[in-house]
């Protein structure tokens, strides 16, 4: 009776990915002055989606980080506050986009049951 609706999974996974990205950005910015710290990043959502397909998204773990390979400053730190700001805004926009998709899918569902 209750078919799993793919769009909800997709929107939820996108929001989850954005939240994880924001977490990594927060770590980078908190460590912006830590000597020897390397800026971290996570795989882009479309890459993960292409690899796992719609079925793998539910259990996907986005938290695997890797060295973002940005240029080093003299103290061995590779965090660029400017790039992190961009990534942070990017994550926030992706998150609100995903939530909007979720919300309108919910609205469609509501309309279809006549409420």
């Amino acid at each position, binding site marked *: 009776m209750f078919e799993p609706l793919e769009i909800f999974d997709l929107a939820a996974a996108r929001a989850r990915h954005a939240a994880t990205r924001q977490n990594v950005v927060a770590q980078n*910015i908190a*460590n912006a002055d830590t000597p020897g710290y390397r800026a971290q990043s996570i795989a882009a959502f479309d890459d993960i989606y292409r690899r796992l397909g719609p079925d793998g998204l539910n259990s996907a773990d986005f938290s695997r980080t890797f060295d973002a390979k940005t240029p080093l400053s003299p103290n061995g730190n590779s965090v660029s506050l400017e790039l992190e700001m961009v990534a942070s805004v990017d994550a926030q926009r992706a998150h609100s986009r995903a939530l909007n998709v979720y919300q309108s899918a919910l609205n469609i569902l509501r309309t279809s049951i006549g409420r």
Partner: protein
Amino acid sequence: MSGFSETMGIAASGMQSQTERLRLLSENIANADTPGYRRKTASFEPYAANTMPEGSVQLGRVQLDQTDLTTIFDPSHPMAGPEGSYDGSNVDLVVEIADAREAQRSYEANLRVFDQVRQMSSALSDLLRR
């Protein structure tokens, strides 16, 4: 799944560390004319205790800058030695101000992230409305 509060905790640890750093800076600047004062420095390091989320930062042990103290020639000064000079501090105001600017910039960046995460979590709870 990484919670928003964890992310906010990381940003908060960054802000706290920058505040402590600013405190050390202001101690240095306040003591710029104290004879024999060595400037305090501390380096950032990963948060050691596991009370804070992974990726948090803290200020490490405070160390004294071991560069040479400045020698100030002033025979009338009470601390002046036989050759008429005494040891001043090794605080360089230009360095301290530059450091303070960096601390402020990093603090603001942490604050921006904090605000961003707050917006994200309130957008999420807006879904539950109606």
